[in-house]
C-alpha cells in the first residue's frame, strides 16, 4: 500500500491515487474515525449509567461515601484525592505524549525516546492505581445487610458515622462450613461465606442500642418527610442518606436475609446493585483501553529506538498513537466527572 507513511514516497496521495481527503493521511484519518466510534461506544455506556441512575435516583450511592481511600492513610476518609491523583497522572502522560509528537515533528529522536518512555511509565502507574482502586472497592470497608425485598441497610452510630459490621456483630456458637467441590460432588460449591451471619449481625445489633440503620434512600426536605416518625431527624440531612429511628431500625433488621461485604457483580455494600456493575464495566473498559495504549506505546517506543521512523524521515506513527493516547485521557475526564463528581 502506498500511503504517505511509506519511506520516501514524497507524494501526498492515498493508495488509489486520490488526493488526500480532508488534508489528512490515510492512517490519521482512520484513527480519527476509530476514535469517533469508540467515543460513541463510551458515550453509550455513560448514558446507560445515567439511565440507571435516573431510574433509581432516590437510592443511588453517593460517590464521596464510596471512594474514600488514600494509600497509607487507613481509616481516614479522603474522598476524591486518589482519583484526582490518577487524573493528574493521566493528564501528565498526555503532556509527555504530545511533547513526544512535537519532538517527532522536529525529527529529534532522543527527545521522542525520553518522552515516550515517560508516557509509558505514566500509563503503567495509572493502570496500577486503578487496580488498587478496584481492590478497595471489592474488599469494602463497613459491610451491610440486604433485606428480603432487596434493599440495602447500612449501620451508623449515634453521631451518624458509619459503623463496620466487625465493630458490633456478635459471635454466636454456630458453625457453617463453606461447601467446596472436594467436600461434595464436583459441581457442588458456593460463593465465599461472609464473615458474619445474619443472626450474628442481628444479635450484635440488639446488644448495641446506640446503633441505627441507614437506608439507601436519599432524604429530601418536604413536609411529608418531616412528619415521618420512622426517620431519625437529628441525623438525617437534606440530600444525604436517611437514618432510621431505633424502633424502625429493629423492625427493618428483622427483614434481613443476607450479609453483604464489599462488592461483586451481583451485590455490593454501597447500595444499588447496578452501581457496582457499571463501575466495574466502565472503569474496566477504560482500564483496558489504557492497557492496550501502553502496549501500543511500547511497540512504537521500540520502533523509535531501532530508528524505523528516522529512516522514514517521518514520525507520523507517533502522532497517530498519540491521538489514541489522548483519547484515553479524554474518556477518563468524562468517567471522572460522571462517577466521582456528579
Amino acid at each position, binding site marked *: 500500500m502506498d500511503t504517505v507513511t511509506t519511506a520516501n514516497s514524497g507524494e501526498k496521495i492515498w493508495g488509489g491515487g486520490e488526493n488526500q481527503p*480532508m488534508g489528512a*493521511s490515510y492512517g490519521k484519518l482512520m484513527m480519527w474515525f476509530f476514535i469517533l466510534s469508540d467515543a460513541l461506544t463510551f458515550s453509550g455506556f455513560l*448514558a446507560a449509567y445515567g*439511565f440507571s441512575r435516573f431510574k433509581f435516583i432516590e437510592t443511588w450511592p453517593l460517590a464521596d461515601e464510596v471512594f474514600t481511600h488514600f494509600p497509607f492513610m487507613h481509616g481516614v476518609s479522603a474522598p476524591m484525592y486518589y482519583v484526582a491523583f490518577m487524573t*493528574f497522572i493521566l493528564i501528565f502522560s498526555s503532556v509527555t505524549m504530545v511533547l513526544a509528537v512535537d519532538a517527532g515533528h522536529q525529527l529529534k529522536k532522543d527527545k521522542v525516546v525520553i518522552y515516550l518512555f515517560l508516557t509509558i511509565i505514566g500509563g503503567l502507574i495509572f493502570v496500577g492505581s486503578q487496580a488498587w482502586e478496584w481492590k478497595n472497592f471489592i474488599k469494602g470497608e463497613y459491610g451491610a445487610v440486604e433485606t428480603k425485598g432487596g434493599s440495602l441497610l447500612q449501620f451508623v452510630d449515634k453521631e451518624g458515622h458509619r459503623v463496620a459490621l466487625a465493630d458490633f456483630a456478635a459471635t454466636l456458637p454456630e458453625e457453617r462450613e463453606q461447601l467446596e467441590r472436594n467436600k461434595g460432588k464436583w459441581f457442588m460449591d458456593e460463593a465465599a461465606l461472609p464473615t458474619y451471619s445474619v443472626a450474628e449481625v442481628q444479635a450484635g445489633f440488639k446488644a448495641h442500642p446506640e446503633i441505627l440503620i441507614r437506608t439507601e434512600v436519599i432524604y429530601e426536605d418536604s413536609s411529608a418527610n418531616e412528619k415521618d416518625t420512622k426517620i431519625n431527624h437529628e441525623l438525617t440531612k437534606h440530600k444525604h442518606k436517611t437514618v432510621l429511628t431505633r424502633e424502625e431500625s429493629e423492625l427493618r433488621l428483622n427483614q434481613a436475609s443476607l450479609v453483604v461485604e464489599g462488592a461483586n457483580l451481583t451485590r455490593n455494600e454501597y447500595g444499588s446493585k447496578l452501581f457496582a456493575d457499571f463501575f466495574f464495566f466502565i472503569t474496566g473498559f477504560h482500564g483496558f483501553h489504557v492497557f492496550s495504549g501502553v502496549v501500543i506505546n511500547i511497540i512504537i517506543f521500540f520502533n523509535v529506538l531501532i530508528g524505523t521512523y528516522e529512516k522514514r524521515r517521518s514520525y507520523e506513527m507517533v502522532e497517530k498513537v498519540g491521538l489514541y493516547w489522548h483519547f484515553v485521557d479524554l474518556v477518563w*475526564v*468524562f468517567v471522572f466527572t460522571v462517577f466521582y463528581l456528579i
Partner: protein
Amino acid sequence: MSHAHESNTKRIWTVFGILSVITIVEVIFGIIKPDSLHLNSFLGLNLLNWLFIILTGVKAYYIVYAFMHMEGERATLRNSVIWPLIFLVIYLLFILLTEAHYIFGVFKNSTIKWNF
C-alpha cells in the same frame, strides 16, 4: 497542519496548566460541595453538577483541540468528527434520561413496592 514543524512546547505547557487548574477546582468543589450550588438547581440539575459538566467540557475542548491538535486540522475533518459526536451524545442522553425519569415515576407511584 502537518507542515508546521515549529515547536509548540509553550502552548503544551500552558494547556497542561489550564487542565490542572480545572481539575483542582473540580476536586475542591467536589469535596466542599457548597450549599449555594448544591441545593439550587437549573433545568432539573443542581448548579454544582452544571459546573462540573461545563468544566469537563472545557477540559475536553483543550484535550481535543490542543493535545490532539484538532485546531491544526482542516475544517472538514474537524466538523466531520466533532458535530456527529456532539449531536449523537446529546440526543442519546436526552432520550435515555427522559425515559429513565419516566420509569422512576412509574416505580414511585406504583402500588407494588419494589424495594423495601
